């Protein structure tokens, strides 16, 4: 299985029926593909929609029904639309049960950096800071390392997205929890050993006696 699918499949297992969920762009967007159809999840698009559906068939998209990237999407029965004040009221007000976001770095205290690399072009934080600050549960979905460097670091060198620590990090190699304010290795990806995870993890990681394999 490719790394992105591993991550998206594993994150999908975190969602519960009735949850209002906001998925960031990139790997997080893929999570929707792996949610069992019997689960009733409300997906929010922060440009003003709850109830996003799959990409419409050729010729059926509407220019006024788009995702946060401006691409045509569809809406499920029971969908609703709203303005940006309401959209971020939902986000900052703790009404979003789970947000899944990409990351540049997550550090040992759970801080996420995912919006700027000083010296490079700055895309802007968009809704990321509100999502990390306000969502009830924040899950980071990202590759464990990039260009041979661990993205799970002892302390973020990049500007933080929020002072609020994230709750869970899911990578192509591991699931890392942050309960009690401590980074703990909770699961390894299929065929990946604890030693292999530790070798590509810069942050100090608590290792329980038993670390199960991801069930995906």
């Amino acid at each position, binding site marked *: 299985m490719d790394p992105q699918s591993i991550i998206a499949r594993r994150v999908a297992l975190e969602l519960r029926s009735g949850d209002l969920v906001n998925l960031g762009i990139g790997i997080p967007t893929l999570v929707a593909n792996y949610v069992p159809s019997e689960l009733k999840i409300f997906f929010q*698009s*922060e*440009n*003003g*929609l709850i109830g996003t559906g799959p990409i419409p068939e050729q010729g059926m998209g*509407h*220019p*006024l*029904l*788009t995702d*946060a*990237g*401006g691409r045509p999407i569809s*809406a499920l029965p029971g969908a609703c*639309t*709203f*303005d*940006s*004040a309401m*959209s*971020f009221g939902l*986000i*900052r007000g703790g009404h979003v049960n789970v947000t899944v976001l990409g990351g540049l770095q997550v550090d040992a205290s759970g801080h996420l950096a995912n919006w700027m690399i000083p010296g490079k*072009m*700055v*895309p*802007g*934080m*968009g*809704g*990321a*800071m*509100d999502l990390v*600050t*306000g969502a009830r549960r924040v899950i980071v979905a990202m590759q464990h390392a990039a260009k041979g460097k661990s993205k799970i670091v002892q302390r973020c060198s990049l*500007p*933080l*997205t*929020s*002072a*609020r620590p994230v709750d869970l990090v899911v990578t192509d190699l591991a699931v890392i929890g942050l309960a009690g304010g401590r980074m703990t290795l909770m699961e390894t990806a299929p065929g990946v050993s604890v030693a292999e995870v530790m070798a590509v993890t810069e942050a100090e990681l608590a290792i329980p006696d038993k670390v199960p394999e991801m069930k995906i």
Partner: protein
Amino acid sequence: MRSVSAQEAIAMIPNGASVMVGGFMGVGTPERLLDELVRQQKSELTLICNDAAVPGKGVGKLFDAALVSTLTASHIGLNPKIQQQMMANRIAVDLVPQGTLVERIRAGGCGLGGVLTPTGIGTIVEEGKRRVDIDGRSFLVETALHSDFALIHAFLADYLGNLSYALTARNFNPVMAMAADTVIVTAEHIVPVGVIAPDHVMTPAPLVDYLVANG
């Protein structure tokens, strides 16, 4: 409310004006007004909008024509033009978290001095801002935004100026329609009074100063 042509509407905007433009990645943006801003070469604009869209679309057209000197937005990553202008110091960009941006505009439209938000606490967004602590939690003071003009795109507008928006094209439009001295509106459909049910009006007519007529 007065109905005008796009040309007349944009002619009211002086160079250097502050302008809010509705839309999200070019969706729900008054394209005709942006085309006319470019045609009339209104320059040195202070622009407030969610994002910089992409070249050739929505507010992207204003960066293509280099008409903007100051931008307040939450996201500019999909427009390489503005990135180049930033690097060349030809534009000043103030990046604001999206939820904070919309609340600041809402505050400006609703007569509030600002709001207290937890977003940005402990990040570089906090720099230069005041904190207020409430029950042991810290919040940033984020001040109201107001502008000279708001350019709004509605789905339906009636002859009085009542507006409704469709699907994800609502976004920043209703909030901005309250936060500017002069509000100029384009609509996909202009309809008689009463066609929009009272419960479905999203921007009440008294907020609209100018509605751009068809044709």
